[in-house]
């Protein structure tokens, strides 16, 4: 199972989302081809209702704590309630390009 599938599986179990998209954006960063380091997650879930953004992100970070402690270096997160998702009609911002800083 690749990282994208692992992330997807954990978020599906943990958040029961009405919408979930996991994109591997490693290709637009300063990493070797085939890397699984940069991901963008857009997720709409009823679990986010009544939660501030930071608490929504904390929830996702906790579900993915093993992955973030390992190969996943950057996670772009767009967390929405089902109503917010509907209002936005599926539009989320693009992730930024890498500027070469690497993992440090």
């Amino acid at each position: 199972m690749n990282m994208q599938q692992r992330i997807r599986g954990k978020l599906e179990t943990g958040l029961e989302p009405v919408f979930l998209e996991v994109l591997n954006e490693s290709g637009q960063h300063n990493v070797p081809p085939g890397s699984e380091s940069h991901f963008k997650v857009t997720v709409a879930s009823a679990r986010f209702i009544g939660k501030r953004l930071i608490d929504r992100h904390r929830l996702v970070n906790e579900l993915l704590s093993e992955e973030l402690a390992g190969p996943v270096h950057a996670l772009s997160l767009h967390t929405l309630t089902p109503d917010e998702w509907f209002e936005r009609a599926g539009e989320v911002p693009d992730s930024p390009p890498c500027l070469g800083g690497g993992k440090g």
Partner: protein
Amino acid sequence: MDVLDRIRQQVENNPVVLYMKGTPQFPMCGFSSRAAEALKRCDVDFAYVNVLADPEIFENLPRFANWPTFPQLYIGGKLVGGCDITLELFEKGELKPMLEEAIKAKQEKESD
């Protein structure tokens, strides 16, 4: 001084602190760049720490507020979030008032 005390001091002494890769002038990461840009556009003074230039902070900041990634924005001593949250607050027009409020609170505290 212990590194966690050092971080605590930074976020308590400055009403707005951005921990980022690189500097606002020369950001070294797209996420840090975007967060710094949002702060710049709010037209307020903010402190920043280049985590690439301070390996001890780079290693330990994630456990300070239990947040795994960079950048990290602190307003009024509290973690607000990373790049995505900073941008979302900026786009909603909520970031500037939050920054101004924290700066004002800090000034009032100091003039007491």
